[in-house]
């Protein structure tokens, strides 16, 4: 077991927990948002960063998780059961989305996931009995193992626990044969095939694992927002998640969380700085502009993301390389 990763994950979670205590309810909400985004980004990083399968449907997968968890919880199921159920449902839908990936590659598959996103969004709006249609499914405060989750603060605990578990599990996954075959798959499907890796099997499992984690994130998001609404799980959300893993550092272990924190906190930071600077009137477009420009600049000048940037600033810093991270010369990332 990679003890170091476990220690780091727990330490980060404790730090986040402390922050949520220090900054009241809003702080708790933000910490929760970062944790959820981090879990979602980890799931997408597993798929894109490690597995090389580009997906634009992650937003909808989170939605699947939120609706599933909401329905289980509203029906009286324990929150934990709801979260696990959301994971399973996310995994199933994700594997379904992944089936075309057995035939399609690269760009074609990426476009197919755009379609999956659009179709799922439509289903959210139309499947009234499950999703309550456009109104969105109001999710009543859940109880996890008998403890009521009525406040933002109480929700921080399960979010951070799941974050740590997922984070460490991903690290472990990349150290077993399955994870290693993802990495080969990312470099080249032909090489993977030649090396005797069962490509179809590995791909479906990558989607399954990623979908499971996305489902967990979706469930937590549902509990935090107390509403699963089709407007919350759009293509924009998918794009946000891709931005997170790219800004954080594609295919790295710490990247998803750093990217998640960055993407969640940046708008708020600009908002507050802008308010202080008296720019309230044009803050929204400024936030968008900054976000878009940052994505572009990162991709051009630091394609390996914040992780690489941080490790360059401070050689022995938080930025722990992934299991055998990209070496300095590796300028070509996964296709």
């Amino acid at each position, binding site marked *: 077991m990679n003890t170091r990763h476990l220690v780091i994950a727990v330490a980060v979670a404790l730090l986040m927990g402390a922050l949520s205590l220090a900054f009241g309810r809003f702080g708790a909400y933000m910490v929760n948002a970062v944790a959820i985004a981090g879990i979602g980004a980890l799931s997408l990083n597993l798929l*894109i960063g490690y597995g090389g399968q*580009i997906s634009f449907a992650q937003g909808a997968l989170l939605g699947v998780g939120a609706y599933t968890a909401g329905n289980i919880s509203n029906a009286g199921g324990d929150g934990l059961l709801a979260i696990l159920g959301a994971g399973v449902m996310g995994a199933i839908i994700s594997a379904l989305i992944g089936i*075309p990936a057995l*035939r*399609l*590659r*690269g*760009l*074609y598959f*990426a*476009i*197919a996931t*755009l*379609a*999956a996103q*659009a*179709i799922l*969004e*439509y289903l959210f*709006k*139309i499947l*009234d009995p499950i999703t309550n249609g*456009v109104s969105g499914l109001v999710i009543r405060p859940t109880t996890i193992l008998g403890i009521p989750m009525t406040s933002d603060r109480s929700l921080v605990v399960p979010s951070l626990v799941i974050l740590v578990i997922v984070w460490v599990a991903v690290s472990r996954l990349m150290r077993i044969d399955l994870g290693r075959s993802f990495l080969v798959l990312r470099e080249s*499907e032909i090489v993977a095939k030649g090396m005797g890796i069962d490509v179809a099997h590995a791909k479906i499992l990558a989607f399954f694992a990623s979908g499971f984690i996305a489902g967990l994130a979706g469930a937590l998001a549902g509990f935090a927002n107390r509403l699963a609404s089709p407007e919350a799980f759009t*293509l924009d959300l998918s*794009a946000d998640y*891709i*931005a997170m893993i*790219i800004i954080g550092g*594609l295919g790295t272990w710490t990247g998803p969380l750093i990217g998640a924190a960055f993407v969640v906190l940046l708008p708020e930071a600009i908002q507050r700085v802008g308010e202080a600077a008296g720019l309230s009137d*044009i803050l*929204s*477009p*400024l*936030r*968008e*502009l900054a*976000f*878009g*420009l940052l*994505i*572009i600049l990162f*991709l*051009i000048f630091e*394609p390996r993301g914040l992780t690489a940037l941080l490790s360059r600033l401070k050689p022995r810093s938080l930025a722990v390389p992934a299991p055998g991270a990209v070496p300095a010369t590796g*300028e*070509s*990332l*996964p*296709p």
Partner: protein
Amino acid sequence: MTLVLQLAVAGLAIGSVYALIAIGVVLIYKCSGVVNFAQGAYAMVGAYVSYALLRAGLHPVLAIIGCMVVLGGLGSLTERLVLRPMLKAPLVAVMMVTLGLLIVARAACLIIWGPDQIAFPKVFPEGAISAAGIFVTYNYIAAGILALVLSFGFLAMYQFTRIGLQQRCAADNTRAALAIGIHVSNQVSIAWAMSAALAGLAGTLLATLNGLSLDLAGIGMIAFPVIVVGGLSSLFGALVAGLLLGLLQSFTDGLLSPVLEDFLREHTSIYSVGALQQVVPYALLVLMLLVRPQGLFGRRGTERV
């Protein structure tokens, strides 16, 4: 019958604008292997630029030409500043950077022109033809014809002129093109410029029909079903598929949805199928990818991985 004809006219007019957008996406893809999410942004910026030029008192013809020139410059500028440094970047990064461009373009337009819809100045004469129960405004006719003529004109240029030949060479085989003395990177810039100019025109036409707002950028997303259905590497396919999808959406909204809803209301407790046209193009896309991944007019083995 009148309804069908009228829907067909509406569908073709919008479809011809789709075609313009999709031709631009395919052009860029053929030449540089980049799938441009920002095509809708070019359309939106183009419409705003035309608006600004018209407001400045320019004659509509000049305004449209001016818009295409500005957009052409913008297109080649993005290629040089943004895409060229990313030549060796992974596919997801390239897709994301074009998404970033879309976000930036929206934000910039939001800062300059504000969030509200704007009435687009009249470019085409007002009025409508009404014959045999079909009612078509001049604006529709003009926009549709202009888009179609430009699409075909562009295809002809691509097929028959010297620059078109160089474009096709650069798109076909970079190494061979370099070897016969073609500056491939310049050709890529030109492709981006032409593509952005076409999108700018499409955006302007769309604005004459539907008014001007930031949501205009959303038209870029329709390009994906269109190019997949048409075949990612076929400009002609993009044109045909654009028209096809325009028709399909129009018939979905005007015929399929009401028929479906009437049936469902009659026999079930389901009352609405929602905005069905939102998914119909994507359903078609999925079907196409599963049945004939190379699209209607694409060649097999054109997939670059």
